[in-house]
C-alpha cells in the first residue's frame, strides 16, 4: 500500500507536483498516467525518498521510505533514468545491492536468470543495450522479493517479447497480492495491464479510478447508426431533447452514417422502431483509453506546440470524440480490450 498525501514539490518557481493525494492498493496493477512533464517521475522519486517534498507525505505500508529497514526487501523500484555504474558488471551491481540488504549471493544469480541476463552477468553494464539495461533495472527491483513495486516506464526500450514479459510479470505479481505502481505514457500499454489508474496533469490529480470508469467518464460514448432514412431518424432522435434530459447530438459522417451521442443503442433502436425507420447498423462505439486520457488531460498538456508538430490529431484538436482511431500508436482494439 502506497499512500500519498497532499504531496507537493517545487523546483525554483516551477511546480512539479501540486498537492497530490492518492492511494495505491495491493493486489492491483495501478497505472500512473500523465502527459510529458506532468510530474510522474518526480512523484515516484518523492515516494522513494530521493527528492524531498516541499509539503505533504508519501508512505509505503505506513512508513516513509527513508525510515524503512532493508528497503529493497519491501520496495523494488525501477527509475526512468539509469541507476547503474557503467564500469561495473551486472553481477557485481546486484551483488553490492544484495549485500546492503543482507540478501544471500544466490539471490543475485536467481534474479539474473529471471530477467534473462545470466549470460552477460559478468559483462560491464555500460555496454548493455537499452533493453538489457532495463532488464537489469528490473532485476534490481525484484532482488529483495519486495511486496511493493514502483516502476517508471518499465517497457521503455524493450522489444515486443520483453514488453509481453513485463506485462505478464506485473499481472502475476499483482495477482499474488503485491502492490504494483507503474507509470507509462503508452495508454494502450496501460489498457492491457492496469486495473486502476491514477491520472495527473501539471502535477495535479485528474482522475483516480478504475480503467473502466475512466473510459466510461469520457464523453466518447457514442453509437454508430446506418439507415436509408438518415434525415428522418436524426429528426426523431433530436426530438427527444428536453430541458431535463441529457442532450442528444446527431452528426453525419462523410459516408452518410450517423453518430449519436447522449443515447444508448437500445434507446435508438426503440425510437427507430416507433418511427418505422429501417436500421442497417446499430453499433455502440467505445472510446479507447487513449481518447479518454486525452479528453481528461487536454487542459493540462504542457507543450501543445510540440504536439501539433507531430501532424497527428493531437489532444488539442480532438474536440468531439470520434469513434475512428484518432491516435496513431493505439491499436484499434485497445478500447475493446480495456472493456473486458
Amino acid at each position, binding site marked *: 500500500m502506497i499512500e500519498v498525501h497532499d504531496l507537493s514539490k517545487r523546483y525554483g518557481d516551477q511546480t512539479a507536483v501540486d498537492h497530490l493525494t492518492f492511494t495505491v492498493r495491493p493486489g492491483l496493477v495501478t497505472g500512473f498516467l500523465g502527459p510529458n512533464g506532468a510530474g510522474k517521475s518526480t512523484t515516484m*522519486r518523492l515516494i522513494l525518498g530521493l527528492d524531498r517534498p516541499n509539503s505533504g507525505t508519501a508512505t509505503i505500508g505506513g512508513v516513509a521510505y527513508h525510515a524503512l529497514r532493508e528497503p529493497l526487501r519491501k520496495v523494488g523500484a525501477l527509475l526512468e533514468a539509469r541507476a547503474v555504474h557503467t564500469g*561495473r*558488471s551486472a553481477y557485481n551491481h546486484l551483488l*553490492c545491492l544484495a549485500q546492503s540488504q543482507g540478501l544471500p549471493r544466490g539471490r543475485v544469480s*536467481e534474479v539474473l*536468470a529471471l530477467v534473462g541476463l545470466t549470460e552477460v552477468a559478468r559483462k560491464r553494464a555500460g555496454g548493455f543495450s537499452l533493453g538489457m539495461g532495463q532488464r537489469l533495472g528490473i532485476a534490481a527491483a525484484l532482488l529483495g522479493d519486495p511486496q511493493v513495486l514502483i516502476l517508471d516506464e518499465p517497457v521503455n526500450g524493450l522489444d515486443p517479447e520483453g514488453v509481453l514479459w513485463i506485462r505478464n510479470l506485473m499481472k502475476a505479481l499483482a495477482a499474488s497480492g503485491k502492490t504494483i505502481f507503474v507509470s507509462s505514457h503508452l495508454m494502450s500499454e496501460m489498457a492491457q495491464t492496469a486495473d486502476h489508474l491514477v491520472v495527473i496533469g501539471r502535477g495535479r490529480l485528474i482522475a483516480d479510478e478504475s480503467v473502466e470508469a475512466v473510459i466510461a467518464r469520457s464523453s466518447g460514448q457514442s453509437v454508430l447508426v446506418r439507415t436509408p432514412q438518415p434525415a428522418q431518424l436524426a429528426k426523431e432522435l433530436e426530438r427527444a431533447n428536453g430541458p431535463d434530459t441529457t442532450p442528444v447530438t446527431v452528426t453525419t459522417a462523410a459516408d452518410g452514417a450517423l453518430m449519436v451521442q447522449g443515447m444508448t443503442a437500445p434507446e435508438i433502436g426503440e425510437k427507430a422502431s416507433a418511427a418505422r425507420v429501417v436500421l442497417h447498423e446499430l453499433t455502440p462505439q467505445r472510446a479507447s483509453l487513449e481518447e479518454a486520457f486525452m479528453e481528461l488531460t487536454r487542459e493540462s498538456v504542457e507543450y501543445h506546440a510540440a504536439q501539433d508538430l507531430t501532424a497527428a490529431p493531437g489532444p488539442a484538436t480532438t474536440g468531439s470524440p470520434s469513434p475512428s482511431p484518432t491516435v496513431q500508436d493505439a491499436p484499434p482494439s485497445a478500447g475493446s480490450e480495456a472493456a473486458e
Partner: protein
Amino acid sequence: MTADTTPEASAALADNTGASGTAAFPRLLAMEWTKFRSVRSTVFSLLAFVVLTLGLAALFTWLTVNQWDKIDADQRAAYQRDAVGNILGGGFVLGQLAICVLGAMVITSEYSTGMIRASLLAVPRRTPMLAAKGLVFAAVTFVVGEVVSFGAFGIGAPILHSKVPVSLSDHGVLRALLGAGLYLMMLGLFAMAIGALVRHTAGAITAVIGFVEVLAPLAQLLPGSLGKHVHAYLPTEAGHLVAQSVQGPKDLLSPWQGYGVFSLWTAGLLIIAGWLLNRRDA
C-alpha cells in the same frame, strides 16, 4: 531470451526475508567494498599510484645521488636532516594526485553514472552510506599508502646509502613512514569530501588539485607572517609534515599538529558534505 521464465516462477520465488543476523553497518561496508573493487578504473588508478610513486621515488633519489657532488652544502644539509622525507617526497609529489582523483571519483562517479540513485534506494540513510564509503576508501588508501611508503623507503634507502646512510631505526623514520600512509589516507578522504560536495568529477578534481597544488604557492605570495601562517595551515601543507622525520626549521607546526590541522579540514568538509547529502535531492 526469457521465454522460459514464467511469471509464476517469479511469484513463487523463495521468501528470503528471514535470516538477517548481521548488523546494518557491516553490510554497508561490504556493499562499499564490492563497489570499490568491482570497477576496473579504481583498481587501475591504485596500481598506477603504486607504480608511479615507487618509480619516481627511486628516480629522484638516484638523481640526487648522481648530483650529490654538484649541489651546495646547505641543500645537502637539508637533505640529510630529513632523508626519509625526501625519498618519499619525490614519489608523492605526483603520486598523491592519483589519490586525489580516486578519492573524488569514488563519489562523483556515482553521480555521473546514476548509481547514486541505486545506492540511496538500497541505503536511504545517507550519512551511514557516506560513512561506510569513507571508511572503506580510507582503509584501502591507508594499506596501499603504507605499502608504497615502506616500499619507496626500501628502494630509496639503498640507493642513497653511499651518500646518506638512513635506516628504519633512525629518529623519526618509522613515524614518517607510518605518517605517509596516514597522510595519503586523509588526502583520499579530503578528496572524497570535496567530491561529495561538488558531485561532478571534473569540478571536484579541479577543486582538490587547486587546494593541493595551487593554493600553497599563492599563499606564500601573501605578505609577511600572514602568508606564512595561512600557508602553514593549508590542508596538505599541514598534513604532509607527518611524513617528515624531523620538524623543519621553518615549519610552524609539529608533525602531529600538522596532521591534526589536516584532519580538522577533512572532518569539517565531510560534515558539510554529509549535511548537504541529506538535504539535497539525489
